């Protein structure tokens, strides 16, 4: 091909030189339109990339706003649920403890009255001195004359006094005993009163704690309603945490599903046939997978009917009676499937043991102790087969968290990708613009001898013109 461009075959260098000169000449004469073309192409591309970058940034901003709206809406809904739950708790406490307050009050009043009465009865009443004590005092002041009558009289008085003293002491002791008995009877009432008051105190303290929690939640709720950055940050962080945790739990559930699948895939071949295929997959494998998926679906419906998750609004807004029926139906199906799985696990053990014996027979090995039937693995497999469907039913909880949080996380990821692409486009546009300018300089470099000549000619022309002008002046 290159041979076509060689003018003088005996001197290729000369031919190349001639072509270079021709090219330089062509480049020189086409300089202005060619450079304009280069610059306009680079400008067009630069503008196109800049425009694309701008529109992507705009899309990212819109996406960000939408994410924010979604995040705040989800946060609002979640906080509303939490506050609602707190109020329900308060309501339960009020219903349980404060609703019976009139009865409690009456009980307390009765106790206080009873204690008051007992207390009054237990007050100490000193025995009143006998009325004739003054007469005794007067008689005692009579001077002793040694008269036996007087001394006899005084002796009698003394005896009477001592008798009376004994009686008084006896009466006083009796009264004290009665008082002490009353006071000891008051003890249980006091205890009861103290317990009742403690209970009331605890209830009130519990309510105070709840009210503090509600206050915090309300403050958070108000922040969400005010759409503050702090609320957004908190919700975003919480969403990311939820995404990671629910993702891990879902992975664990998947592990459980795989174990479950292996437990029932082999015995399913006994039912649907070991050599049957649906597409490229074994029919027994698909049947086992379908059973696991149906169990998971039943678990979802059960959790939804129990109001634990909120994935299906239709179930959530169902009439309570219908919902209770649904709970029983889904639970029954789950129970039946669990029983079926336990039976399949049992069958799997039988088939596996039979295969093992056959393999040993084919290999010409006598049946070993290890391969003899033991009930432990059989029971273990059956228990696993029964429990795993119920365990899978709880997948609904992390699934709900995953779905809700993935909306936010995916939004953030998409915004990040859009921003990155916008940056790359902007960078590419700027590089193209710079390359265009560089090409123009390169173009000038190729034709620099002619440019130099042109510049010289122009300078000469200017000088000639100025000298002519001076001469004419």
């Amino acid at each position: 091909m290159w041979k076509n461009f060689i003018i003088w075959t005996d001197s290729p260098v000369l031919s190349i030189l001639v072509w270079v000169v021709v090219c330089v000449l062509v480049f020189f004469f086409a300089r202005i339109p060619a450079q304009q073309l280069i610059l306009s192409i680079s400008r067009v591309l630069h503008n196109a990339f800049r425009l694309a970058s701008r529109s992507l940034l705009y899309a990212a901003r819109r996406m960000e706003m939408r994410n924010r709206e979604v995040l705040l809406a989800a946060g609002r809904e979640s906080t509303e649920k939490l506050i609602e739950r707190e109020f329900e708790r308060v309501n339960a406490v009020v219903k349980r403890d404060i609703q019976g307050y009139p009865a409690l009050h009456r009980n307390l009043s009765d106790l206080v009255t009873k204690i008051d009465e007992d207390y009054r009865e237990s007050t100490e009443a000193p025995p009143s001195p006998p009325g004739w004590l003054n007469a005794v005092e007067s008689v005692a002041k009579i001077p002793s004359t040694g008269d036996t009558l007087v001394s006899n009289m005084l002796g009698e008085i003394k005896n009477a006094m001592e008798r009376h003293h004994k009686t008084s002491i006896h009466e006083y002791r009796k009264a004290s005993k009665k008082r002490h008995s009353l006071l000891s009877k008051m003890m249980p009432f006091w205890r009861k009163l103290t317990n009742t008051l403690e209970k009331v105190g605890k209830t009130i303290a519990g309510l105070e704690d709840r009210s503090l929690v509600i206050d915090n939640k309300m403050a958070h709720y108000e922040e969400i309603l005010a759409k503050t950055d702090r609320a957004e940050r908190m919700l975003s962080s919480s969403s990311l945490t939820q995404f990671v945790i629910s993702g891990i739990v879902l992975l664990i559930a998947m592990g459980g599903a795989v174990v479950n699948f292996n437990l029932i895939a082999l015995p399913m071949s006994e039912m649907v046939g070991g050599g049957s295929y649906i597409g490229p997959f074994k029919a027994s494998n698909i049947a086992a997978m379908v059973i696991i998926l149906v169990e998971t679906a039943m678990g979802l419906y059960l959790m939804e009917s129990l109001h634990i998750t909120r994935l299906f609004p239709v179930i959530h807004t169902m009439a309570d009676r219908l919902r209770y029926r649904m709970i029983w139906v889904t639970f029954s199906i789950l129970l039946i499937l669990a029983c079926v799985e336990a039976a399949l696990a049992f069958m799997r053990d039988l088939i596996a043991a039979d295969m093992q014996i056959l393999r040993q027979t084919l290999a010409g090995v006598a049946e070993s102790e290890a391969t003899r039937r033991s009930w432990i693995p059989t029971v273990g497999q059956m228990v696993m087969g029964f429990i795993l469907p119920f365990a899978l039913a709880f997948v609904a909880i992390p699934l709900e968290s995953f779905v809700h949080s993935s909306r936010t996380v995916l939004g953030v990821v998409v915004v990040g990708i859009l921003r990155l692409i916008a940056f790359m486009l902007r960078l590419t546009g700027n590089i193209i613009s710079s390359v265009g300018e560089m090409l123009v300089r390169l173009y000038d470099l190729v034709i620099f001898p002619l440019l130099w000549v042109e510049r010289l000619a122009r300078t000469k022309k200017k000088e000639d013109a100025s000298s002519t002008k001076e001469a004419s002046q």
Partner: protein
Amino acid sequence: MKKKTIILFFVVTVVFLIHACIDTQSRTKGVYLLIDTSGTYTEELKKAQTIINYLLGTLQPGDSLAVGRIDTGSFSEKDIIAKVTFDKRPSTANNQKRAFQKKIDEFIKGVKESPYTDITGGMLQAVEYLNEAGSGMKYILIFSDLKEELAAGMIRDFQIKMDDIRVVALNVTKLRSDNIDPREYMNRLEFWKKRVESSGGLWRVINDLERLEKILSD
């Protein structure tokens, strides 16, 4: 928009299911093992028994297995020692395998040497059986030294139609004459290779019986 997505998802699922259901390609395996009972090769029959046991342990429910002998005139149903298509249920298939093994054991105990070796007739019988069994993947295993000796009047020099049948020569022993001139052995293998491949089959030789898993590998 949501409704459209649901409809689209539904349509895709239905299409996938229809495609899956109309996929009638059989994935079962059909294996026909030809055992040479001529001359001194009967001494190798214990090895054949090992191969049969391996096949019984490997083949799955729905697969077919037949064992035929190579004797003076092998193109005959009488030369089929045992044949079975395993039931779809694994438990029944296991019982069939036990019965099959018993039959083979009885055959090995009472086998008689044949004066001639009609390999081509055996292969014809194998092709006929495999086509009738309708397996997805067809294998003919030839347990022989591949030295064909036909009785007078036997016509076997024609092409056999064996499209997509995998022919595996097992335990191709070297004869005394091969030791004198190894080219004989090479030529024998080359002859069968050409014959199988020109008939549309796939040819393979496995002499190391420690690697039996290679027999049914694609």
